[in-house]
């Protein structure tokens, strides 16, 4: 199954990158203006035309895409015009920080979501359940950047206990583990909280349904302890939908990270993405899109594999 999925990914990735080039070409933004910045406001037309030629953006859409594609296949991702550096270097410098942030947020969201969801399912309809479910619905509607601003206001401005942004303290020039840990806390928590509702609600639903199913009722009637019933039987089948969710949350996590990173000036891949998009930086934009698409495809593949492992009834090549 894995091999076939990988083959399927090829046309998807091709279509996505071409789409990026086509949409960017149709946008009213001028990459040369973006490149020149303030200097462009006094530059001569001849000068701007020369830069347009140097950047290769006077080529037709298809030619630019083909150039980029053939370059990428030989390992040359091109140069980012907006960040004035090779694309591979831009991604290499930033990807790690984004992965750190997302991984932390994801682990917290999955663990906390499962715990809260199981507890809510255990006492369905009770006080705890109603509070958690209500909060989850409210959070579902709250955009991550708004949560981020709220967190900055509370923890950084009002309480003054956590830094408002950045990777390290403003005055420091080296990145120590302790500083990074302190700085990652707030953005990771905000990202985790923004992902939390889906896990809570799915787990609650899954475990709640499982508790009402025959095998669980059977287990209960055999006189097994409540804890065994809940953790061994109900949780196991109740977690199946969560496994699917893990895969499908990946795109949401990426867009969430995009906004959270911007709010907290986290030097991850998101800031580069935003800059690439607004300055029509084709090579960077295309590479980042391929990366995001690949993450989504891998996420889906992963959740299917997990599903198969957790439930033997699911055939791998069904």
């Amino acid at each position: 199954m894995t091999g076939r999925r990988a083959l399927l990914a090829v046309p998807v990735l091709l279509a996505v990158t071409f789409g990026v080039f086509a949409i960017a070409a149709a946008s009213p933004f001028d990459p040369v203006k973006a490149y020149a910045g303030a200097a462009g406001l006094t530059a001569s037309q001849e000068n701007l035309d020369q830069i347009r030629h140097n950047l290769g953006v006077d080529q037709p859409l298809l030619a630019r895409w083909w150039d980029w594609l053939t370059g990428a296949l030989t390992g040359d991702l091109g140069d980012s015009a907006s960040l004035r550096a090779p694309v591979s270097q831009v991604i290499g410098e930033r990807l790690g920080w984004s992965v750190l942030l997302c991984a932390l947020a994801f682990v917290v969201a999955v663990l906390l979501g499962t715990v809260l969801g199981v507890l809510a399912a255990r006492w369905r309809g009770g006080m705890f359940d109603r509070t958690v479910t209500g909060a989850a619905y409210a959070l579902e509607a709250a955009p991550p950047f708004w949560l981020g601003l709220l967190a900055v206001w509370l923890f950084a401005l009002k309480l003054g206990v956590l830094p408002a942004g950045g990777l390290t303290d403003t005055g420091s020039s080296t990145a120590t583990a302790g500083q990074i840990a302190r700085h990652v806390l707030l953005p990771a928590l905000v990202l985790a909280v923004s992902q939390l509702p889906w896990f809570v609600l799915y787990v609650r639903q899954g475990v709640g349904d499982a508790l009402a199913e025959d095998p669980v009722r059977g287990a209960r009637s055999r006189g097994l302890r409540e804890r065994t019933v809940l953790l061994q039987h109900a949780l196991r089948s109740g977690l199946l939908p969560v496994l699917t969710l893990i895969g499908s949350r990946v795109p949401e996590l990426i867009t969430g990270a995009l906004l959270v990173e911007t709010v907290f000036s986290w030097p991850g891949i998101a800031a580069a993405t935003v800059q690439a998009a607004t300055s029509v930086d084709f090579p960077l934009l295309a590479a980042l899109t391929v990366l995001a698409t690949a993450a989504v495809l891998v996420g889906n593949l992963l959740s299917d594999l997990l599903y198969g492992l957790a439930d033997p009834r699911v055939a791998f090549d069904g």
Partner: protein
Amino acid sequence: MSARSIRGVAAAALATTLALGAAACSTPSDGTGAAGPKDSAVVGIAYEPDSLSPLLGYGKDGNSKIFDGLLTHDADMKLEPALAAKLPEISDDGRTYTYTLRKGVEFSDGKPFTADDVVFTYRTILDAKTNNASKAELDAIRSVEKKDDHTVVFHLKYPYAPFAERTVLPIAPEHIAGKQDVNNGSFTTHPVGTGPYVLTRWSKGEKLTFKANPHYWGGAPEVKNFTMAIIKDDDVRATRLRSGDLDGAILPPNLAAAFKSAQDKKTYTAKTFDYRNVTLPSANPVTGAKAVRRALDLAVDRDAMVKGILNGAGKPAYGPVPTDSPWFAKGTERPHDLKQAERILDDAGWKKGPDGIRKKGGQRASFTLWYLSGDKLRQEHALAFASDAKKAGIEAKVESGTWEVIEPRMKHDAVLAGGGSPADPDFDQYLLLHSSLAGDGFNNMSRYRNEKIDRALVDARRTDDHDRRKAGYDTVQRALEKDPAYIFLTHIDHLYVVDDKWRVPGEKGLTTQVEPHDHGLASGPWWNVEDWQPKK
């Protein structure tokens, strides 16, 4: 197991979560080092450079912390030697500039600085393959050559009086920058120069950190660590300044006012050439009409704009040259005079219609005025201008957009524009007014043509006789009074709030230069951070 023990598990989980949170909360916050060491300074700025390579335009107006130019500006914007040992020798015909270089200067990697580096820097910038959007500023250069290791000669295409002002641009090391892709190589982010500071880290979108160059030819700076934090939002900058996270920051007038009474902080007001004006496209039948231009020039209430929009931090502008500059032509100030404006319009046949808007031969006195969306200062200027114009019977329909939206409309619609470059009067006036640049990119946006002004501009740039230059720019300014090319509104002061713990030798506190439109990295009181000393 019973429900009770599940509750136990849950409680434990919750307690762990809370404990984690609490631990985080109780971590001492070391970001608030207001009483930090005096050899470190952290300042908040609003803009980030795209690149740190002088070959791509970084630091072209001088004052880069990492690099030096051949020349530099002192506090009064007078030229003084930097990498050159003295000011250049200029040939009698004004077309040959000879620079003798300072000896014994090293780049921060220990390699010597020579004439080769100077020639390399200028030749690379002028190379068509280099993506430098400011290279037109070096248009006058025909060639640059090395005479010996410590002498460089520039040959110009035409005599160009302000040429020496252009040689403040930073010199890049050939042995590093010459060995890589000029547009995308690692030098663009990891620069090596001869300057007082060495870049230690550039976290894009977050900050630039520098440490003092102990071998700096001008003496090692006393501020050993210098950080520029990039904080785009004005309010966040003010908050982080108040919390002690920053030692200084640029702030808009209303936020700077809040620090007026702070004992440990000082506010610095930098005079500028930073103007806001309204373009008057000559192709538009309304803004192209001389009577309308003259009337608008008298109808705008500049004093009210300075007071209302700038909180007093600025001054009325009648042209690109600020009223307190020695290049300003005294007597060309135009006081607010609505009556005279109406008289001019009446005499020219623009009669008021029933809706209060004037008309002439079926042409309604109405045009569109664009401003850059998101720029609050420009928005307020545009609205104030429209309201003043309306009193004279001229309608300016204010709209906002990005440059992508505005640019295709610049030929027919007015734009609330900005600019300003203090080093030489030629820099602003030639680009704004000369007819050969009409509609060339963002130059001469009004597409203004005035033979008298064209002649005066060329005369003034081709002589280095100060009196003749002054006479030329006086002619330009007086001609503009009779036939305005733009409606100049204000010159805007830049405000900075800085901890009062440093001083510059010979001064009570810190100093500022006259600043350009761009808020470059090196504007503000930290323009000479290498000279700062801890206050006794």
